[in-house]
């Protein structure tokens, strides 16, 4: 069983034999997406979960903003989720997870930009209750795009980085519903493409491998969200 390593104040930067180190947090969707992408690209990496309420000092040295995720590759340090993704893609060109066509690539970037600007605030707001209309408006972007593409995944016949980046946010919804007993159902009829996509993603090997490695599931996630709402985030819940 893989072990989740947490780093907090007082901890020094771990020594690792691996060339690639990702600093994130078990439940953080941004670093989750990068973990999925790195697995899918077949990269060998160490993941460190940062106790965000009590951050180790070295984090600030790696990223002056003190934010996660941060990627260390040998002596190279890169931060900001999308920039890390592009760095990985440029550096490890095997198994590309983006289109090689400039226009498709640009469309994907625009779509992700829209999603990442609009979806996270709505999902975070679920900690305070549900605004079904706001959420449905955002999920409609996902539905419309999948319908327009007419393919099983955003990436076509296989998931690409967009699939993983969107998934890592949508996966939070069931846990939030559970944690705060929200009644929200994504309509099966008008969101049929989204539902079909969720069904496929849920079976993705890398997603399931990551669930195992981080010991994260909807139940554990919901306990984490509750602890956040109670003011004392339990980053090691369920371990």
């Amino acid at each position, binding site marked *: 069983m893989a072990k989740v390593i947490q780093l907090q104040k007082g901890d020094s930067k771990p020594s690792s034999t691996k060339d690639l180190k990702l600093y994130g947090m078990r439940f953080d969707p941004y670093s989750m997406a990068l973990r999925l992408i790195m697995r899918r690209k077949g990269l060998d990496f160490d993941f460190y979960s940062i106790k965000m309420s009590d951050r180790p000092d070295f984090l600030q040295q790696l990223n002056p903003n003190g934010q996660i995720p941060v990627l260390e*590759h040998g002596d*190279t340090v*890169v*931060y*900001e989720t999308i*920039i*890390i993704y*592009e*760095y990985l893609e*440029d*550096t490890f060109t095997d198994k590309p997870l983006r289109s090689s066509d*400039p*226009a498709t*690539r*640009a*469309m994907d*970037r*625009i779509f992700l*930009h829209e999603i990442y600007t609009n979806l996270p605030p709505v999902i975070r707001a679920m900690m305070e209750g549900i605004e079904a209309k706001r959420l449905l408006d955002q999920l409609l972007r996902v539905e419309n795009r999948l319908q327009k593409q007419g393919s099983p995944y955003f990436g076509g016949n296989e998931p690409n980085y967009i699939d993983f980046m969107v998934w890592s946010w949508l996966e939070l919804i069931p846990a939030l519903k559970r944690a705060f007993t929200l009644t929200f159902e994504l309509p099966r009829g008008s969101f049929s493409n989204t539902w079909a996509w969720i069904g496929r993603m849920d079976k993705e090997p890398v997603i399931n491998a990551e669930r195992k490695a981080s010991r994260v599931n909807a139940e554990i996630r919901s306990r984490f969200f509750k602890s956040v709402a109670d003011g004392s985030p339990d980053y090691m819940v369920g371990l």
Partner: protein
Amino acid sequence: MSLLSKGSPRPAKSSKPRLYTARFDPYSAGIRFLLNKKGVDYDFVYINMQDKPEWLADINPAGQIPIMEIGDEIVCETIVIYDYLEDKFPQVKTQPTDPYLKAKDKIFIDHTKEYLTGKITSMVKNPTQENIEYVCSVLKSINKIMGERGTDFLGGTSPNFVDYYLWGWVELLSALKAAHELSFELDKDEYKHYWAWVMKMDKDQHINNDRETHKLNLKCRTAFFKSVINGSPDVNAGL
């Protein structure tokens, strides 16, 4: 020069790449410098952002410029356009090919967007001491980065996309000073690297071609800002 406002029909497709822009828009300016540098023969139309044509929302739901249109491909969002143009016209490089250097440049742009552009925008209407000091402190960090890079331009021996992005914004400062009759000065020694960069950028042929094409100089920029301050923006100032 056609200025398209509410009620103006959408122009017929061009056989050349087309930029939807506005004369005084700093985001578009960076893209225009870059198109010149890449030697792309493009045409452009001006959008009256105070009174937008109805169809603007059809090509960019966010209703923003710049927008790049090449054949059937429409791309919006400044940074996405930079990447798209780099993919589409790879002959003249305007981004590093090394993944790490590219990531560093992207982070630089991210920070500029986060800390500088908003403050410069708010200086148009609120040239408060606080805003001015903030802008100066950001430029000081930029001065430091320029010193560390130790090259003529952020892009090395010639300007790259980061130089052009930044220039689109800092070029506004002298016009803002004139419009508001502000007296702040960036010290020549303290901001040595920044000033050296400004002098070189000011002579860059692609920037100067753009000034000529769009009839831009300090005088008309100042007149434009004055008109904005007075509440009736004159997008044709100086024409």
